[in-house]
């Protein structure tokens, strides 16, 4: 098999650049020659069929999964060779995560959930609670602050999860199907707040979605197909 050269990426401006990623799970080749680059403040949608490797790509970029091959450079550091402790510190302090399922701690109130990432960084309780409350307000869910995740609706839960991802003012936000189905005003509010906050704070977002209306909040899109990334703007025209 001949391997095509990794797609060159504009690393000078980039905050996060992955080149030539390959990842296998047993016999499954989940990623193969996947490359992507995020500029500061840029919102990039990752689209593609189910099972094409979108989540795997996100996990490699976020330092959750170690790829078998390739590099992931975050501000000059290669996450693939970084030690586990350093990687988890990086994830905690620089990255924000929004996943579709089960991300709130059920035993904590919504306010405590949002304040948690700050408390882990030893921000004093009063200050952490103040910032968490502010974040809940931005997402219009301050009225559930005292309730536990089990006592609120799914849509409210999504908003609280977004508040928690944003409260530390991450440099890169990783969002994997963050809104569930967008057929609701809730989904729109979540996306609007998420992207507006990113714009304000010049954070980048990697937005995995199969919905075009969600991808329409991005600056550009990347398509993953059979584990390979494809930038439609640089891909060859139909011929």
């Amino acid at each position, binding site marked *: 098999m001949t391997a095509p050269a990794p797609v060159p990426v504009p690393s000078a401006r980039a905050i996060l650049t992955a080149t030539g990623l390959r990842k296998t799970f047993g016999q499954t080749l989940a990623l193969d020659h996947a490359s992507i680059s995020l500029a500061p403040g840029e919102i990039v949608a990752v689209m593609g*069929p189910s099972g094409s490797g979108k989540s795997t790509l996100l996990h490699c970029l976020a330092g959750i999964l170690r790829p078998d091959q390739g590099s992931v450079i975050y501000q000059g550091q290669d996450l693939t060779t970084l030690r586990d402790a350093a990687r988890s510190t990086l994830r905690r302090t620089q990255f924000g995560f929004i996943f579709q399922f089960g991300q709130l701690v059920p035993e904590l109130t919504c306010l405590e959930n949002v304040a948690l990432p700050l408390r882990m960084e030893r921000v004093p309780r009063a200050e952490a609670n103040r910032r968490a409350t502010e974040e809940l307000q931005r997402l219009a869910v301050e009225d559930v602050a005292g309730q536990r995740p089990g006592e609120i609706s799914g849509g409210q839960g999504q908003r609280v999860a977004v508040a928690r991802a944003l409260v530390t003012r991450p440099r890169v936000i990783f969002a994997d199907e963050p809104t569930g189905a967008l057929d609701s005003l809730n989904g729109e509010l979540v996306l609007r707040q998420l992207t507006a906050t990113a714009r304000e704070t010049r954070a980048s977002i990697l937005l995995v979605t199969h*919905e*075009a*209306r969600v*991808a*329409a909040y991005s600056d550009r899109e990347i*398509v993953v197909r059979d584990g390979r990334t494809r930038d439609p703007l640089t*891909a060859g025209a*139909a*011929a």
Partner: protein
Amino acid sequence: MSMGQTFLGLLEAGPRHGYDLKRAYDERFSHIRPVHFGQVYATLARLLKHGLVELDAVEAGEGPERKRYAVTEAGVADVDHWLARPEAPDPYLQNTLYTKVVLALLTGRSATDLLDLQRTEHLRLMRELTQRKANGDLIDHLICDHGLFHLEADLRWLELTAARLDDLAATLTPAGGTTTGRTIRA
């Protein structure tokens, strides 16, 4: 929808008479409402005039049905160009997009490239509408949403088609005799 390019694509399989072309066209692209002979010959005359087809053979006798047409190099280039150019997003595109995908598969061009290109074009407009919605009032919101939902429906169909390209290619593998040097691939 462009009958001209579709004819050219069909002719890539080999020269055909006008009536044969009409039959192939009706079968693949227009089974609900067959095209008129008049339209077929008008289209062929136009292609001939622009050098996109040439007469391959003229049999003895009178009338247009005696002529056999072959696609020229310029004609093939014209199909390339048409397939490589995304359509302006529009809620009622389905027919043209369907024709493009089928034609790409029939002629061994990349339907995946075509779909990716079209997605980019649709998303460009969807971003514009999303932006307008963010800056607009409730009325803007409703109007933009209408456009967004329609464009999304187009794209969902495109994605599903992309996922089915292999099946579609298998369905379209020439059973009716005409083969080309090209192989059908997704």
